């Protein structure tokens, strides 16, 4: 028997506060938004380099740790830092950061520990992230934006963690 569902139309709806006319055109609204965000976007590289250093130091802490003692919690710490970089890179004009951090997230997601080979793969990802800032690789980087994810996928596949490892 189908589950009984109750359908409700809320009395208050967001559309009651928004007029569909009288505001700027979508194009104009987006230009205004980009102008409003100009300062924060241009400041990204400065603080993101510090975040990347934090990621690197966390990694070095792993290398100094006896591998058997790298716990799921340690991996989660690094995953969270990579996850932040993945979300922020493209948002602030560095899509390559998002692509590389996405690969690192896929590699770390759900892992209980890290082997010597795993640590090497993590190291390569972080060095690639640092290189993007060092070379100031902003915006669409053309062929590089296609080649890097493929290379990193090949690297993950070497360790047996490619696409869809969660699905």
């Amino acid at each position, binding site marked *: 028997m189908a589950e009984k569902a109750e*359908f*409700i139309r809320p009395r208050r709806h*967001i*559309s009651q506060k928004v007029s569909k006319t009288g*505001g700027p055109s979508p194009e104009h609204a*987006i230009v205004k*938004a980009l102008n409003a965000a100009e300062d*924060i976007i241009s400041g990204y590289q400065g603080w993101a380099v510090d975040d990347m250093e934090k990621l690197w130091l966390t990694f070095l802490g792993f290398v100094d740790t006896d591998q058997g003692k790298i716990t799921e919690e340690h991996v989660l710490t690094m995953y969270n830092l990579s996850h932040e970089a993945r979300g922020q890179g493209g948002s602030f004009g560095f899509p390559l950061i998002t692509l590389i951090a996405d690969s690192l997230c896929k590699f770390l997601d759900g892992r209980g520990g890290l082997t010597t080979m795993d640590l090497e793969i993590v190291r390569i990802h972080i060095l690639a992230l640092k290189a993007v800032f060092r070379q100031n690789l902003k915006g669409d980087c053309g062929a590089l934006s296609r080649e890097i994810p493929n290379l990193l996928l090949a690297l993950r596949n070497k360790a047996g963690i490619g696409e869809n490892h969660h699905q």
Partner: protein
Amino acid sequence: MSGYDFQNLRVLIADDSRQIRALLKSFLSGFGIKNISEVSDADEAFIEMSNFDPDLVIIDWNMPPTNGLDFVEKVRLGENSPNPYVPIIMLTGFTELFRVKRARDAGISAFLAKPLSAQSLYKRLIAVVDDNRPFVRIKNYFGPDRRAARRTQFMGVERRGQ
């Protein structure tokens, strides 16, 4: 002047990244929204729901130690929820299908994948304003009608099949 006028909206932003909050706030201000409140975690967001009474919440999924999904469930199903019907946009770097489904099943109104752009945020705002789905209450779910979302998504395919 030919577009949506968002100036009367009250928007609550919850993200643990100060920079992402600043970016969101700048975009929303650019769209003409003046009343914006920002918090850095899900528990604070729930408290701010009562103080600020937002028309829309934009919340990040991954905010250790709590997360955006817990917030959505608390708002939709919690006995002391200030507004169980408030539209919620889930902002996240998680884009895997099983995670999108999990967020939908918690009762979100829309999903906004990072990286963020002014265009993607504008589109989601319009989608939420134009979203006229009823809310549905069943045994383990309260939120926007998920079947209506699926019908809309597959409308083109159904028409071709007729």
